[in-house]
């Protein structure tokens, strides 16, 4: 009798705490849903062909005339250039960590520690780093070499913003690529070696092609992270207003995230420019959410492959 009573009470506790934790989960999803839903409903009406393909040349704060093409182009340029820098370095680091390094050596642990730490550096510190290293030091040195009176490289530019973002997203690419490399069946490598290929040949011809989905995930996640990043580019390349699209690496650029910041803080009439703001938010959200969704799908495929391989 006593035993049955205890069981029953425990079950109540079970039910209660399962419910509580389940409720927390639902609450988080609700926050996400309300946030994204509200923004899409508010901003969806502003979306039009003219808004997306229009320039800011007429009036940046007039909802009937403003367009965000320069911001879309600027954001695309920023992430495209970043990808060019970050993918080779990230993939090569991951190859070293999984294919060459012994996992118990102290160097490997230091590299892993550095990668983890890089992932946790505040974005504004990356911004300061961009100013102190890329603009002042690298750019300044290049200017001294050229010897002109006007700074050519020692000022905020697309190149410096992309490089700083590449440093920031390096851990994302390394971690995703590493996961993909580990998911490749060891038998593939062994077969290649048994046929007389060298280690490097095996990596280039067998391992990397098979890890392509993982590298893609890393690239997608890095782009998703960088696309919405504002603190890094505040002082390394973003511009409040430009008449022209960026044409070279030395140009500054307009950016979707930075434009959202400008519209929320420096708008002459916050109520009137609200539609432009939410329209821009929707475009940026569409971009980052699609990228993250794609990464989740590719990653789910790799995980299945991983389970099959081991």
């Amino acid at each position, binding site marked *: 009798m006593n035993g049955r009573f205890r069981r029953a009470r425990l079950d109540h506790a*079970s039910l209660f*705490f*399962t419910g*509580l*934790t*389940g409720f*927390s*989960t639902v609450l*988080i*999803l609700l*926050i996400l849903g309300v*946030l994204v839903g509200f923004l899409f409903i508010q901003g969806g009406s502003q979306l039009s062909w003219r808004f997306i393909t229009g320039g800011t040349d007429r009036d940046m704060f007039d909802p009937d005339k403003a367009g965000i093409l320069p911001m879309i182009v600027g954001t695309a340029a920023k992430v495209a250039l970043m990808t060019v820098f970050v993918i*080779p370095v990230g993939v090569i*680091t991951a*190859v*070293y*960590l999984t*294919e*060459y*390094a012994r*996992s*118990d050596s102290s160097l490997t642990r230091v*590299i892993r520690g550095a990668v983890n*730490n*890089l*992932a*946790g*550096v*505040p*974005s*504004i*510190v990356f*911004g*300061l*780093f961009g*100013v*102190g*290293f890329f603009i*002042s030091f690298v750019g300044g040195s290049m200017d001294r070499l050229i010897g002109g009176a006007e700074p050519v490289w020692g000022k905020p530019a697309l190149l410096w913003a992309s490089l700083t973002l590449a440093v920031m997203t390096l851990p994302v690419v390394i971690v995703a690529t590493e996961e993909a490399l580990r998911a490749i069946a*060891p038998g593939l*490598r062994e077969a290649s070696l048994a046929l007389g290929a*060298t*280690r490097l040949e095996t990596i280039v011809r067998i391992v990397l092609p098979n890890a392509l989905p993982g590298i893609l995930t890393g690239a997608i996640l890095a782009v*998703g992270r960088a*696309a*919405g*990043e*504002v*603190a890094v580019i505040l*002082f390394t390349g973003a511009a409040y207003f430009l008449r022209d699209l960026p044409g070279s690496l030395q140009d500054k650029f307009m950016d979707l*995230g930075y434009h959202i*910041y400008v*519209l*929320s803080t420096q708008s002459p009439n916050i109520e009137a420019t609200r539609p432009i703001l939410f329209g821009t*938010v929707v475009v940026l*959200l569409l971009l980052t*959410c699609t990228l*993250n969704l794609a990464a*989740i799908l590719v990653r*789910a495929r790799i995980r299945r492959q991983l389970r099959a391989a081991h």
Partner: protein
Amino acid sequence: MPSPPPPPDRADAWRGIRRGQRSRPLEWVVERLIFLVSLTAITMVFLIFLFVAREAAPIFLGRVNSAAVLERKAPLSLDELGRLSPEEVRRNLDLTAEEFQRMPPAWIRELALFRHEKHLEETRNADKDAGINTVAWRHLLLPHQWSDYDRPEFIWQPVSTIHKYNIVPLFIGSLKTTLVALLFAVPLALAAAIYVSQLANPRLKEWLKPAIEMLSAVPTVVLGAFALLVVASLLQQAFGLEYRLNALLAGLALGVASIPVVFSIAEDAITSVPRSYYQGALALGASKWRATWQIVVPAALPGLFAAVVLGFGRCLGETMIVLLASGNAAIVSASLVDPARTVTATIAAELGETVVGGHHYRMLFVLGTLLFAITFVSNLAGDLVMHRLKRRLEGAR
């Protein structure tokens, strides 16, 4: 019971094979290059610290003096003016020849008198503060009795002649918003992590985990703008707050941003607890919940701690949300519904207005260096705890 030997390393598997191969110089070079490129991450962490600290170094080393130099030339007294020629008087009073011609002598006397007295009054106040080196450690950390205040105060006010650089209000602002964020995010994220990893049915789990992690797809500038334009007024009306933008609002938005971080790490920690712990508890008659709460969660506790520490680092370093939603007033107050100015928002808001190499510019790099140091330590601690936990649990498997 001795733990089983760890599975052979993939690198070890290569090693035996490699010996039999003829050496190829080109491959040797490429492999060295791969090694060098893999050092990029270490180099970058080092460079970040070096170049952020480099700009801040003169202040850390006490080589900067920000004492205001009063360059205003003192307007002459009437007696002194009387000894000058009319042309010199005109130049001294900054008047054009035409203005000087049209002004009656009485007006000129009045003007000279007014300027002289105003100057005396200004210097009486300013002189007391002007000699102070405001970037000395004492003035960065301790309250100071400024001449136009009633009592010693912590003031961050890098404007006008005397730049006041007390960093205490900024760190209080950062800690306040971070505290609110963690109080909001940690219980939710940990509960969700427990639910998703242990209690939810496996098919649901496949969906829940990526769905919660989708929250990290929302850029922080979007969260900040949402808090500023939508939530701020709702929160103010709901609680009758005095200020629309405050630490509470910024903290809540920050909490939403840190939920996916805390959740992911906590979920990872709980999942790495061997399934045998859980099954053993069930076999002994524990309910699902009891096995989770009394066996699995205690085993993963260091990991949950790591999740909170890493969440703390993320909140402290977040910029755009606090820049948009915190109200940006550098005040020392314990109230969570007062506006707050954080370290990150200060750097973001002020770096654009500074002179490169000036003391204000260097002060912002000092803030950056401190921020980097704090997050470096908290990240290192979090990672170390997580690493140890996983090794221990793997050994026990």
